[in-house]
């Protein structure tokens, strides 16, 4: 018996040490996805670009349009947001698109690719996204972001982020100046055309300088910016079965029909009123006829397919444009040297408008007219200065108003409104939110819940949408 005893105890201790790890070797290798190192860097570019499209043209962009009197939230979530019930949950997708979609993947390209052309493009895309995020949210994590060693990145000041974005644009420009320039099909914006990329990067620098109110630097960057509408950076919808179409069209075509638009049952947004000849707010006069553009801009909210204008299924969506560049120059030069310095830039934009630049094929046969201005139009009593303010302010007011109208669908009107609110109210567009609350003005988008929830360096509570960001204080 005693021997059996020992045998049992021995057996027992032996057995509990037996379990073969070797039998499991290699079983847990993921059979469904590929190792990052096996994938060429250029294949990461498109994903970052579509993430950037959402930051520029997605939900928060529609909200910024509502908050500047261009769109109205008629029903459901958009009507709640129109009433300033904007929760942190609404920023989750753009925040995810920025960090997970753009920054991580563009940095991967910059750090691993040996094509300077690809690296330069990736830098510019990252700078574009991060600068836009800084303009919308204020202080955001950037210097410590996308670094796996830091699990709670600190929030950098908005100005510091703008400066980093501008520096990154410069790096991108310098990289592209010496790189090759072949076609890159993964580049869904410019197909690899480096001269277009360099010009767009300069316009972005001008834009970010403008946000910081550094008008001199904005003007000098814009000199090298986009010089014709062919160089516009746009989101171009494609021909796939689905999920690559104009974003506004997509939401109205689905279950969000009727929720947002600018003209439903006769209730029109301020933007459309501005373009309506019959309306007291109309900007039409002897030299300006906005009839075609008004029709082009009018959104039929009942469904996406009811539209053939600005939100038509394959209508491109503006992100960085020629007219933006020119109008930055018009404003910056106008501020520095008055009407005579800025007028030529404004007239170049009007010439472009007069060639049907801000319309599509379905509307170019409707009436429109944008005659060139002369200095006298801005003198007291001229067609652009009926209320007798200074010529320079009348000119700047028209430039800002042109940015407001042409920039429909971009973040530009929202950025201008906030930039000018402190001390330039006399040249800002005095928009109203139709059937909305006009007693308070939103100044920023809320931080994403997903960040507040998991980053201990984030503020304990979101500062709220009425707190001014650093550059606008």
């Amino acid at each position: 018996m005693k021997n059996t005893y020992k045998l049992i105890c021995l057996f027992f201790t032996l057995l509990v040490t037996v379990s073969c790890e070797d039998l499991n070797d290699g079983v847990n290798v993921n059979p469904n996805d590929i190792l990052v190192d096996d994938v060429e860097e250029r294949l990461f570019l498109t994903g970052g670009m579509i993430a950037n499209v959402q930051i520029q043209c997605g939900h928060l962009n529609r909200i910024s349009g509502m908050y500047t009197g261009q769109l109205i939230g008629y029903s459901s979530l958009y009507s709640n947001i129109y009433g300033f019930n904007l929760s942190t949950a609404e920023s989750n997708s753009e925040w995810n698109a920025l960090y997970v979609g753009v920054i991580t993947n563009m940095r991967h390209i910059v750090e691993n690719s040996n094509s300077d052309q690809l690296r330069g493009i990736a830098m510019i895309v990252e700078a574009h996204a991060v600068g836009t995020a800084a303009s919308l949210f204020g202080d955001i994590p950037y210097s410590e972001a996308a670094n796996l060693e830091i699990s709670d990145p600190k929030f950098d000041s908005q100005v510091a982020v703008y400066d980093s974005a501008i520096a990154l644009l410069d790096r991108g420009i310098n990289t592209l100046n010496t790189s090759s320039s072949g076609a890159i099909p993964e580049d869904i914006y410019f197909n690899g055309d480096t001269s277009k990329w360099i010009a767009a990067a300069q316009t972005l620098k001008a834009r970010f300088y403008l946000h910081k109110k550094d008008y001199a630097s904005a003007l000098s960057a814009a000199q090298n910016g986009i010089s014709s509408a062919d160089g516009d950076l746009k989101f171009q919808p494609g021909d796939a079965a689905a999920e690559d179409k104009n974003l506004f069209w997509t939401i109205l075509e689905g279950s969000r029909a009727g929720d947002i638009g600018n003209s439903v049952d006769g209730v029109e947004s301020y933007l459309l009123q501005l373009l309506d000849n019959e309306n007291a707010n109309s900007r039409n006069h002897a030299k300006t006829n906005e009839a075609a553009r008004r029709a082009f801009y009018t959104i039929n909210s009942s469904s996406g397919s009811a539209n053939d204008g600005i939100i038509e299924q394959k209508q491109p969506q503006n992100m960085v444009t020629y007219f933006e560049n020119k109008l930055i120059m018009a404003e910056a030069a106008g501020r520095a040297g008055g009407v005579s310095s800025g007028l030529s830039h404004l007239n170049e934009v009007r010439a472009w408008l007069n060639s049907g630049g801000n319309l599509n094929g379905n509307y170019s046969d409707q009436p429109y007219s944008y005659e060139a201005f002369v200095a006298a139009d801005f003198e007291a009593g001229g067609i652009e200065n009926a209320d007798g303010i200074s010529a320079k302010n009348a000119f700047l007011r028209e430039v800002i108003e042109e940015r407001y109208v042409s920039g429909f669908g971009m973040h530009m009107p929202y950025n201008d409104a906030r930039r000018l609110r402190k001390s330039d109210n006399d040249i800002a567009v005095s928009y109203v939110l139709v059937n909305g609350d006009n007693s308070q003005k939103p100044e920023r988008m809320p931080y994403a819940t997903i960040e507040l929830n998991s980053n201990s360096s984030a503020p304990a509570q979101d500062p709220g949408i009425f707190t001014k960001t650093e550059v606008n204080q």
Partner: protein
Amino acid sequence: MQNTWGQGRNGVFGATRAESWGDYIPDRAGGADEFNTTGQYFTAEDGTVYYPITTKNSRETFVESNWDSVFQTGAFWQNDLTISGGTEGNTYFFSMSNLQQDGIMREATYDRTNLRFNYNATLNDFMRLTTKAAYTYTDSNRIQQSSNTAGIMLGLLRTPPDFDGRDYLGTYTSSGGQEFSRRHRSYRRYLGNSANPSYNNPLWTLFEQTATTQVNRFTVTPQLTITPTEWLEIIARGNVDAADDRRVYFFPIGSAGGARVNGAYQEDEIATQDVNFDFIGRGQFDLSENVGLTATLGWSLNDRRYNRNSGTITGFLVNSTKQTTSLNTSAEASAFENFKTFRKSNRGYGILNFDIADELFVNLSGGLEASSTIEGTFFYPAADVAWNFTNSAVTSDFLSFGKLRVSYGQVGVQPSPHRFETLAEGGFTYSTYSDPLNIGSFGGGYRLDNNLGNPNLEPEIKTEYEIGTDLRFLDNNLSLSMTYYSNTIEGILLDVSLSPSTGFATQYGNFGAMENEGFEIDLAWNAIQKEDLLLNATLNWSTNENLVTDLYGTDSVSLTPGASVSSRAIVGHPLGVLFGTGSQTNPDGSLILDENGFPQITSSEIVLGDPNADWRAGLGLNLTYKKWNLNVVVEHSQGGEFSPRTLHVLNRFGTTQATANRETLTQDLVNYAGDIIPSGTTVRGNIKDFGAGNVLLDETWYRTGIGGGFGDNQAYNFSIYDATFTKVRELSLGYTLDSPGLKQSTGLDSVRFTVTGRNWININNIPGIDPETNQYGVGNGFGLDYFTNPQTKSTLLSVAFNF
């Protein structure tokens, strides 16, 4: 559901509105509606023509008929055959069963056929072979449900009372005379004038869409038992469980929801294969006169494979319901996807059972496990001691048996497979609000997988202590068991949200810890035991307290992503608490009201309620009198909270009775928009006092304000109800017919007739919704429903013939 207010908004009828905040139906002129017959119209399949409505006169309501067109009394027919027998050394068991069921929704079907054969063979003096084999075939058609515009309940419950949904398919003719066939007529598109119905007409969901599944499953378990000596037994057992599941999802052109509007056809082929092998040795020893030992040593191997192939056609060129890939022959429309998982683990273990003087039982066990999903091996010990104290220490006439037991053990749960690495993933989409951009539509591409890999995964380990007693009284006729347990679970495997600014959205890992503490009582009583009359009663009662103790830095983890009210793991709260925006409150619980006397929503989400029950109890009674038998099972759950989001969101749509109240005001009241409604006005709404005096809850509160429950920024504290319920789970009456005459004439030993009612009685605090519904099915998140299919009550009649 209300039937007094029509489709529309602001008290005005609107035939394309999503909501039912229209005019007061009894006040309508009556008679037929007026139409515009000059332009577009819709022709239904039976020839009925629908024109655009210019004036809504009709007072007809269709709540009942719409409901009846969707629901039916479900029925099933089940036949079972069982044959068993054999000789002393060889026995067999054969059974065959067939079930055919029509569900409570029309077109929902479920058919199942089972075959089973078990055979035990004694090969010789010391070897026995057992083989079990089973085969199951299921074939069913399921109906789309839940938060789904092409789902059944969403379309049905949002339908206004004055819309007759019975004509759902037909031809739309435009004002220009162009005809569009197979158009979907829904309450938001009553002329079928758009290919997109917004929300499905529920009849389209039933009759046009299909979601079929066919499963073949085989299980075979051969086992060889060898007893070379009388104290040693060796078992070798294998098991193969293989299944294939073929699922077809079909949405014709015109089905609601994103890309489905152009038609969608998907076929999944899922193959699973589980192989197990066990090798066990068990020996019985007498260590001394009083001490016996049973020692078990075992080794087991487990191998699981899963493979799914999916083919989809998105967008049909032909408007047909034939399920074929020819519906769109272009390469862009078709996609192929494959997903596999492999899991392998093996475990060596030993168990020692000591029996001391037939009174003290000590069990010790330990297992060492290696799994492909973890690095390294893990050891799991367990021990328990039981003292049968009535054996010698205590003797009593009243207490016929008593046992005290204490145990300790550790068990582990393996992580999900293939989570070690961070890889390049394709197939991703960026969407900010119903506006997806899919990488596949831009020529394909990759990104760094936003689920960060984790090479350091460990199993989730539960350590539990338990103390209890089993007592029997009155000659073992009354038994009582009581158990107290406490456990901690470390390293809970969760997908936690990382700070997105790190560049990754989630990481799967051991990021949670939780503890449970509870008490259970089981009582069984053979109350009456006479020849003709038997009565048994059972009672069980249990309570469990759970607390999430650690989430390793994350504030909360959502168990139900994407919901406006979610069920979450939050440190300091039980698992599953309901989380969403609520109303601002003072520390004493009273609401912080705005200047009009209305609540205000909290700036961020808060804990709204706890769906865990305080305690649960079950009562069973079984009464046999001569040949009759009555069985009753009652269950009660006390406490816990539930958010019936379906009910709450229908307030926004104005289809609930709660929003249909019509009152003439006896005082001036202010509504949520700040307008003062004068005394004497007849309004639609409810008068409520939140703490600062009466206010009027009207359309501005329910539809456009924070009281309606649609989306994220709503006062969801008003959607929380007490989840207490009492259910009579089963009530059955049976009669056994067994007389010598029966045996002589038919050869039957007995025939047994049973009538059973299940869930006939259901008492709870939530109007129209059963608190046991779970939008998320089997999982950790619960306490929520959102257009989830309803529970059923049923009546069964069965006849069993015994030969």
